[in-house]
């Protein structure tokens, strides 16, 4: 019953959205929203009876019936924000507070001609770039109620557009901060388009200040056109009582290359969908994920790599480090379509359990409809190596530091894969904050 009530609650809220946006935006967008809310209405909120949601109970989110975040941006000073930004002076930064763009907390670095880094609301408002071919064209809303809700309710977010041939040297950072005291929902929406032969690196951070309950329902669409290269890094440092559900949907064209990093540190309940469609020959998608969680944190990563065309390759490494009573889930689906011959797909999920009560679930789902392919997967769930611990202690290192060092080493492989240096440094800092014993001798690494 509750589920139905909540559904009605959101359907009701959508009426406000329609009233607000009617006539103010393109009819394609209104149609997109309408279709999305219908998709949501049809599916409703998922329950654990659904195979895809059997480990993740969204009832606390559903029952909370969050209201949209308030208009006023509050409580984020530039100093506070700087703790969450990359250590680059000149890179572009877009900051959103409680779902809305904050001009004051954003800056644009020197950007090559034609590059667009701006608030999505502004871009939709001024109509200077036709977003219709991309926005909402890649993410599926049918059967995906949270992506549907985001699409129906999206209000602001980031647009990053890299024109053909441009090689962006500096990373672009997008920060979504929730500061609001009332329980509220935001619908961050990001659209990244890398035109052919372009190259860029984009870092999305989701941060929570304070310990209020709130809900981030985010969608990012990434378009990587012919021969373009994109590194996308997503970092979750949400508040301790927050809920975060997201979809990162990428579409790869011929000979394009996407490297996606999905880091989950903070948040009480996190469910990420990372989907990649390899839609032309020679496309290459690499999905990295790292979840470092404790207490009763719950992180569920569902990835889906769709090999739609021949001669594409995908590599996937997801690593979980689970302490206390935390729970980490990895579900890795790889689809190889009938004509996707010569597909090369490799998937690995490794889990390190730091406590007896932590729980890891791993589930590869390979659906292979072509016959000349190379698909491998492997999963491990284990504890810290006692003999390695003893070795370090026998060299004088305290038990706590030895545990932290080995834990850091377990994650280090993924950190090294972040090629954008300021982003890598930032991730290292986050990890070391969690594993203080691993920080003593950083200089030499």
């Amino acid at each position, binding site marked *: 019953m509750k589920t139905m009530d909540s559904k009605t609650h959101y359907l009701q809220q959508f009426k406000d959205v329609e009233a607000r946006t009617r006539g103010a935006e393109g009819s394609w967008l209104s149609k997109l929203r309408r279709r999305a809310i219908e998709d949501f209405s049809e599916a409703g909120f998922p329950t654990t009876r659904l195979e895809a949601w059997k480990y993740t109970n969204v009832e606390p989110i559903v029952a909370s019936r969050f209201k949209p975040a308030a208009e006023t941006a509050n409580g984020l000073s530039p100093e506070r924000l700087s703790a969450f930004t990359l250590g680059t002076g000149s890179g572009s930064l877009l900051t959103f507070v409680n779902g809305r763009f904050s001009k004051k907390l954003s800056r644009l670095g020197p950007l090559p001609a034609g590059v667009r880094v701006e608030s999505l609301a502004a871009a939709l408002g001024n109509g200077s770039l036709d977003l219709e071919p991309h926005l909402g064209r890649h993410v599926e809303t049918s059967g995906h109620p949270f992506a549907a809700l985001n699409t129906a309710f999206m209000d602001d977010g980031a647009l990053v557009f890299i024109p053909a041939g441009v090689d962006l040297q500096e990373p672009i950072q997008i920060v979504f901060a929730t500061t609001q005291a009332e329980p509220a929902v935001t619908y961050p929406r990001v659209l990244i388009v890398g035109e052919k032969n372009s190259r860029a690196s984009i870092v999305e951070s989701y941060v929570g200040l304070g310990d209020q309950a709130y809900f981030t329902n985010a969608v990012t669409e990434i378009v990587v056109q012919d021969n373009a290269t994109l590194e996308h890094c997503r970092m979750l440092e949400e508040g301790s009582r927050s809920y975060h559900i997201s979809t990162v949907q990428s579409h790869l064209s011929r000979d394009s290359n996407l490297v996606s990093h999905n880091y989950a540190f903070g948040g009480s309940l996190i469910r990420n969908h990372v989907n990649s469609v390899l839609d032309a020959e020679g496309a290459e998608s690499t999905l990295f994920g790292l979840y470092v969680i404790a207490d009763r944190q719950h992180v569920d990563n569902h990835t889906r790599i769709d090999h739609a065309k021949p001669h594409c390759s995908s590599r996937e490494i997801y690593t979980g480090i689970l302490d206390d009573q935390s729970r980490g889930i990895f579900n890795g689906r790889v689809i190889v379509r009938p004509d996707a011959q010569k597909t090369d797909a490799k998937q690995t999920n490794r889990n390190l359990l730091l406590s007896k009560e932590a729980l890891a679930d791993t589930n590869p789902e390979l659906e292979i409809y072509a016959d000349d392919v190379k698909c491998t997967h492997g999963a491990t769930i284990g504890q810290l190596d006692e003999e390695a611990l003893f*070795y*370090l*202690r*026998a060299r*004088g290192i305290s038990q706590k*530091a030895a545990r932290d060092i080995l834990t850091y080493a377990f994650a280090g492989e993924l950190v090294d894969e972040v090629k954008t240096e300021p982003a890598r440094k930032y991730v290292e800092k986050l990890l070391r904050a969690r594993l203080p014993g691993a920080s*003593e001798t950083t200089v*030499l690494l």
Partner: protein
Amino acid sequence: MLEIKNLRVRIAGKEILRGINLKVKAGELHAIMGPNGSGKSTLALILAGHDSYEITAGEVHYQGKNLLEMAPEERACEGLFMAFQYPIEIPGVTNLYMLKAGLNAARKHRGQEELDAMDFLKLVKERAKLVEIDESFLNRSVNEGFSGGEKKRNEIFQMAVLEPKLAVLDETDSGLDIDALKIVAKGVNALRNKDRAIIIITHYQRLLNYIVPDYVHVLVDGRIVRSGDKDLAVELEAKGYNWIESGAAAASGS
């Protein structure tokens, strides 16, 4: 420096050390020899603080302290070092990182200032030369992908950096070719001094040609059945353990 009294140790219900007595003074070098499975590594691991063994009787005093009550890291910080018979690989942790953490933990423990990166590097490079370890090994993960001989040399290198007061070297000579053996011996000899004690566990008298021990003990079936000087090792090499074992049997039978 070290005194072991009537040490008895079990693992998985089996008694492996059956009353070990041993006294080691500063400046001395002791060799422990014995057949496979006699308990040599068990003794070394007990000294280093490995916790998978059950100590059923006996005492171990190290520099006047009850060693058995100390955590492994505390022992190391107090100057005890063990070179492992089977050094483990630790992917993702570099040699340098581990050594700097270990050395600075010990310095802190002793109330000394921690070494900064520069001074540490200087020290490490100098010690690497001593055991002829290529500098490229320093930044590699601990023992990862090292050959058997390289792992052993790495143990001696670590000893040279950590400068222990008491070093227990468990079969550091096994699997070394003659050149590597000489390098290891040179390293050990360079570290010998009147304040430092060394216990060398070995199967082969060969090593003792290069590192001359003050005492040789023979461990059989969890007991030291014979002690002597370096000539005992030579005799053992010539006659084999059977000679001792039958002697031991005779001794305990009488």
